[in-house]
């Protein structure tokens, strides 16, 4: 199609996107006839605008109906939120998975009082109490082993008492 016919159709608003691209390419080339050189600047401007990423339609829409554009923006944001939330959910799951791996769940974690016997966990309070008491009873060795200072006096007293008894018996024998 002739470039002038294409130009006419462009001004009539009948050109397709491909045809408009062809027009822009033509006016960007060095083969533009003199009588059409006036349009060169116009198409150069459009090219520049496209390169800058400006959406003319969006600009027009924002002037005509700003709400429509806002809605479009909101839709995009909602999508981002979904992505972000999915990422967060994945991170939380990964964190829980890793912590589970590093710190395996305690079968008795739900209970403050428990006893583990041969690897099996029991939360029966009587069993727990008796097991605790057994351990406590076991470590409760005689006081002179744990508290020699306190009991050294008692031991000394016992020794003195024994010696006094012996002495007393000697005296009684003499009598």
């Amino acid at each position, binding site marked *: 199609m002739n470039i002038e016919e294409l130009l006419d159709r462009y001004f009539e608003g009948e050109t397709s996107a491909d045809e408009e691209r062809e027009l822009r390419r033509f006016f960007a080339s060095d083969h533009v006839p003199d009588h059409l050189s006036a349009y060169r600047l116009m198409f150069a401007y459009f090219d520049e605008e496209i390169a800058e990423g400006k959406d003319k339609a969006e600009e027009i829409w924002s002037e005509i109906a700003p709400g429509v554009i806002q809605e479009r923006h909101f839709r995009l*944001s909602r999508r*981002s*939120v979904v992505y*972000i939330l999915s*990422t*967060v959910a994945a*991170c*939380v799951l990964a*964190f*829980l998975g890793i*912590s589970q791996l*590093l*710190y395996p769940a*305690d079968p*008795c*974690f739900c209970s*403050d*009082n*428990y*006893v*583990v*016997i*041969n*690897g099996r966990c029991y939360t029966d*309070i009587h069993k*727990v*109490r*008796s*097991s*605790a*008491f*057994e*351990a*406590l*009873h*076991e*470590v*409760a*060795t005689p*006081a002179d*082993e*744990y*508290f*020699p200072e306190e009991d050294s006096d008692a031991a000394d007293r016992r020794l003195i008492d024994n010696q006094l008894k012996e002495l007393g018996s000697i005296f009684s024998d003499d009598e």
Partner: protein
Amino acid sequence: MKQIKYTLLVWLAALILFPAGAGATETAVMQKDLKIQDVFQRYGRKKNVTMVELSNEMLETYGMTRYKSITIKNDPEALNFTRQCLEADQKGARKIKEVTDDGGVISAYYQLPGKEADINRFVLFKVNAKGVITLVYIEGDLDSDDLITILFTKKDL
């Protein structure tokens, strides 16, 4: 701008969640600055081992906030390991009473300072003639006299 807001919210959520997770694991590790915790962790779920943990209202009447004990039968390796742990924890102890036999500790009593001024921590250890190891950890506002009363009163907890 909205994205920045959401990003901030995400970070906030992460910051809230992370300490919660970390806290959960921290609760499981009670006396984490003590080496004896390794004895509970390493042998607590093995065969011939009895591990007890008590806390909260069950211990209130005794002035304790936490009680943990482990009894290990027929495990010489565990005895060596426990002795090593006791040796490490002994360094931070306020009071130490030990009975040794043939160079090895056979019974021990350590009183350690708690995180708060009025809180005491006690480590009790004994290995009997049959080689049964008993290790007890007690935490609370009780003092050594209270502990002696508990130890030598043949009364259930």
